[in-house]
């Protein structure tokens, strides 16, 4: 394939599926998708392909032992060849000389780092790895379905609004408060997902019993996601300072987005709702 600029993505189905269209263009394309069966079939076909790709190309559980083995090899100098999986061993009964030299060097380096590593472990706490960074990417509608099927159980329930604001400030550099929910709206708590980016946070709520979720991420990292048609869900977008919020709801209008506010600007709300794909 040759290098070059993309072919007029602003008008293509690819740009639509890729979330690259501006809001007005996306709304126009939504209408086209709804009215054009062939276009809708293309969009649905692509959705199936994307789901297949996620099934086929997700690191298996076997990846975890590899990491553990790598850590072990880097700390105790264990022969690097012990990292070989049975598949690898069967395919390559004998590593190439260059690779063997590399493995020997790696083992030697790992062995030499043992003393330093041991001291390091004493003087420094273990590296904290973001538990959510390893999550597989999921689309908003997938996260929505997953959360609904698991009963809207949040990963974190903030004890007060200050803690809620700190969660946003720590993650996105922008504190956000939540106004007291009106009658019929109940907020369950916060969870985390790899959706807009790996740092996406989402609020779980119910509006008159219907599950509603608000996904939050940094404005500069916004990928302008969209929902596939025919899911019975609507997407509403709002920006508050450095944070972009997306409400995924089966209802015809956003009911939770308006509850978020920046403490510096309260009570003024920017209510420039932008509608996404409709059922």
């Amino acid at each position, binding site marked *: 394939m040759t290098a070059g600029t993309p072919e007029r993505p602003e008008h293509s189905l690819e740009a639509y599926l890729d979330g690259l269209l501006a809001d007005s263009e996306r709304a126009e394309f939504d209408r086209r998708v709804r009215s054009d069966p062939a276009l809708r079939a293309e969009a649905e076909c692509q959705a199936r392909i994307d789901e297949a790709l996620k099934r086929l190309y997700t690191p298996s559980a076997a990846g975890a032992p590899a990491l553990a*083995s790598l850590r072990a090899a880097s700390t105790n100098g264990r022969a690097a060849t012990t990292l070989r999986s049975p598949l690898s061993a069967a395919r390559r009964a004998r590593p190439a000389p260059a690779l063997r030299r590399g493995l020997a060097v790696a083992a030697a380096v790992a062995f030499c780092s043992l003393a330093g590593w041991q001291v390091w472990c004493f003087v420094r706490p273990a590296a904290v790895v973001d538990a959510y960074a390893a999550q597989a990417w999921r689309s908003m509608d997938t996260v929505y379905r997953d959360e609904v099927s698991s009963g809207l159980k949040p990963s974190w329930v903030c004890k007060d609004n200050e803690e809620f604001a700190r969660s946003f400030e720590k993650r996105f550099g922008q504190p956000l408060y939540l106004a007291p929910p009106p009658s019929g709206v109940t907020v369950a708590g916060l969870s985390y997902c790899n959706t807009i980016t790996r740092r996406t946070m989402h609020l779980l709520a119910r509006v008159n019993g219907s599950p509603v979720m608000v996904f939050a991420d940094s404005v500069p990292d916004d990928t302008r996601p969209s929902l596939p048609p025919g899911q019975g869900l609507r997407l509403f977008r709002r920006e508050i300072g450095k944070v972009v919020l997306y409400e995924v709801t089966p209802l015809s209008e956003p009911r939770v987005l308006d509850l978020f506010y920046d403490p510096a600007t309260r009570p003024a709300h920017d209510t420039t709702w932008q509608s996404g794909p409709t059922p």
Partner: protein
Amino acid sequence: MGRSTGGTRADGQDHPAGIDAAEFCAQFQASFRVLWLIAAGTVGEASLADDVVQDAALIALGKLDDFQPGTNFTAWMGRVVRYVALNQARKERKFRMTTGDATLADGDTPLAARSDLRGGPLPAGRDDTRVFDQRIEEALQTVGEVARACLLLRTVEGLPYSDIAALLEIPEGTAMSHVHRTRRYLRGRLAVWQANGPAAKEEHA
């Protein structure tokens, strides 16, 4: 402690050590999914990606001083992964040629329609998911490694094009073009499969 002392390089200037083993392990773990997808995309088979990433990690462990602090660890590690994956892909091709298995082919003509399309209506039910996945996998093996890696990083990991471009050392527009063209190509392949029907499947089987 834990960081090596660095040294003098060919340019005669002293450089601080790149990264220590502990930091490497932490960053490797955080980057593992992306590295795995680069490996899977480059080598073309998910089943080989674990080995490729492991090999790359072992090589990188021997070159920790080459890493420049402050630069993108995943991009640095991704370069090692691509190097190992390309070598692995070459070995696989040789292996398949000597054993008569030539299913992996055509890597340099990524979007060329092939005449040996096997067919059958697209499966609709969940029971046929495996067949559908198999067709996608087959079609992807006829796509170039860079295009495949771009597609996986965008679709599976949802990376922005700027990140994909940095990881694969290609222009951002090229990364986007690879993704869009490959998606279109895959839909085209599925449409041909569907149009050919069961008879075509039997004929080519």
